[in-house]
């Protein structure tokens, strides 16, 4: 033990131990980002010579209707995901901490979608939304609500349909975060609140939510950053369609770079996405300033 203490106190040793991670995060991670930024000033199909075009790609990007609409779709998905996942996650967490029997079972049941791969979930829900034999329309038919049957992946509903699938996938994860946070609230605070007459909604809004705020913030940041790079579900279920109705920034990047061979344009779009992600993270951190809770 003594040897180790001594070793960790030594500056050289510290440097050596940090080196791998340092190299990783100063070279391997930022380099592709910088390279992509650099490529965004060129026109390149990966075969012919790269030609420098200045800000041409950015101009083209922002005059492309599909890209503009992809920004809006991404925002829609982000907002829907926030509303659905935070509220449902919180609701489920509150239910779960209050049940004693079968708590483990419910916890696992909601968490299972999270361990499935997105590809599997995408295909699964692709069938759920199927017009002919899909689960939703079949249920509607059995209960005699044929009039409510819809083409769930049509232009009108596709964003909503995708957000629900994503919610199904991730809500368990956020629920677990909230369960842990709620369980961590000291019992005496709760008891004191009860004595003061806090109950039901009041208890949740005045005591529980403020107490788990740091965890809520983490989960909100995760949902937002996850939604910004929303790709897998949209690509598997709709390929950004029909008629680009579910094109997100990430599917746009993939389509332009790998399907249309416009690497410069794709890089410009990813640089934009990178900038937006950084900006949003900064804003969230600023507005929801850290508030450590000391018990």
């Amino acid at each position: 033990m003594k040897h180790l203490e001594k070793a960790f106190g030594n500056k050289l040793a510290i440097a050596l131990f940090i080196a791998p991670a340092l190299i990783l995060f100063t070279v391997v991670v930022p380099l592709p980002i910088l390279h992509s930024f650099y490529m965004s000033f060129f026109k390149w199909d990966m075969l012919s010579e790269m030609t420098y075009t200045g800000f041409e790609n950015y101009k083209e990007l922002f005059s492309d209707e599909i890209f503009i609409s992809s920004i809006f779709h991404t925002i829609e998905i982000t907002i829907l995901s926030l509303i659905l996942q935070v509220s449902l996650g919180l609701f489920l967490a509150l239910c779960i901490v209050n049940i004693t029997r079968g708590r483990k079972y419910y916890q696992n049941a909601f968490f299972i979608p999270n361990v499935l791969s997105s590809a599997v979930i995408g295909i699964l829900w692709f069938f759920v939304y199927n017009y002919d034999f899909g689960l939703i329309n079949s249920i509607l038919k059995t209960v005699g609500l044929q009039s409510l049957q819809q083409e769930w992946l049509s232009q009108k509903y596709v964003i909503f349909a995708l957000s629900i699938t994503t919610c199904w996938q991730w809500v368990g994860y956020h629920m677990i975060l909230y369960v842990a946070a709620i369980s961590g609230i000291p019992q005496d605070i709760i008891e004191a609140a009860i004595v003061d007459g806090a109950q039901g909604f009041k208890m949740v809004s005045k005591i529980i939510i403020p107490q788990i705020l740091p965890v809520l913030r983490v989960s909100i940041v995760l949902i937002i950053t996850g939604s910004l790079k929303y790709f897998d579900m949209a690509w598997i279920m709709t390929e950004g369609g029909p008629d680009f109705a579910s094109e997100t920034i990430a599917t746009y990047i993939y389509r332009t770079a790998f399907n249309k061979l416009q690497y410069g344009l794709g890089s410009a779009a990813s640089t934009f996405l990178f900038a937006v992600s950084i900006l949003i993270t900064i804003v969230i951190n600023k507005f929801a300033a850290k508030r450590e809770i000391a018990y």
Partner: protein
Amino acid sequence: MKKSLRFIALAVLVIFAFSFVLLTQVGEKKVQGATNELTFWSWVSDSDTIKQVYEQAIKEFNSNNKYGVKIKAVYTPGEQYKTKLQTAMAANNPPDILNMWAAGKMKPYVDANRLYPISDIMNKDKQWKDRYVDGVFDLTTFNGKIYGIPQIRVATVIYYNKEIFKKYNLTPPKKWSELVNVIKVLTRNGIIPFALDARDPWILAMYAEYIANRIDPDAYRKVQKDPNAWTDKAFIETGKKIQELVKLGAFPKGATSLDYVAARNLFDQGKAAMYVMGIWDVGYLSTQSPVKNKVGAFKWPEIEGGKGNINNFLAGIEQVIAVSSNCKNKQAAAAWLKLLSEQRYAKDLLAEKAGYFPSVKVNPDPKKVTGLYLEVLNMLKDQNTKDSFTYYDVMFGPIIGDGFNNTIQSIYLGKDPVEAFKKLADIAKKEMKK
């Protein structure tokens, strides 16, 4: 104490050194390769019969060839292939022999001098070239040189369920008005006329490409030179015909959430009476499909007042193999490609076993192929090559071609054809100016 520190430092350094050595070695090995080994990259998957053809031909070639080389195949099925190939091309480290696309999708590779004109070798070997069906090289020829060898021919036809047609007293339509009538009878009886997967825009585009041809075959030629021709009457009219089909109820409800297999299932289950698809599905439809004994095929009907002939086919080639310009032994690569054109591969395996239509001339044993296969083979003999045309996304490449597919999808969903094609013309103008 100092000792332990030194030990730790040393250990870390050794690990670093080792990993560097390992990394560089792995890298070098990849770049160098064995000089007597030719790599062949393909996108076929285990379920493709063509993989068997490749595998057997490789085995045969590797066991005795005068070049002293071995061919090593690397299979990367699906979308990944494209990404992998592009990355390798960008790094200027392409495979020696590779699966390629035709026409517009091949052109960038030819323009960048990445492919070897195989006709340089082929022209000295007349017997080899004569094995192929006339015209199969049209889509792989640039500046008079052939850059790739197709393995199979494809074309799109309309399959139909003979039993359903018989039940409602219908015959394969030869004119648009007859087709409209067929659709009306079918919908009246609760049968879906066409099993369509509208999620994948290229499938819907096949309908449009046929309609445009039947209206005016020249439209296809015009847009190859003049991007403004996308707003020609023939295309606008095509858009209107697509919307007419939608209005008639020609397609299943919720077609945008059907994929290839789900759409085909509708035909398999007898819920849909017709199915527009390439002849690559003949094998499946005549051997595996639940309706296998009831499937027939017919040509796309003519449109009254249109200039297109019923014998103009939407046709093309598939499974093109090209030799890269970096190939270490082009003679050997050519010899292997020639081996692939042997009858035992083309006729026995592709035609008789898999139900494909090889690019090599074959006369399959009528007892060994299905009725549908023969029907389609005979139909292809009527082909009027002059006004036949190929898949637009292949012909016009990823920007204009896929743009066309998406245009048709948006029209299917209700967009005004005039507006939609104007947008496509803008895309084409920008692309062709470059």
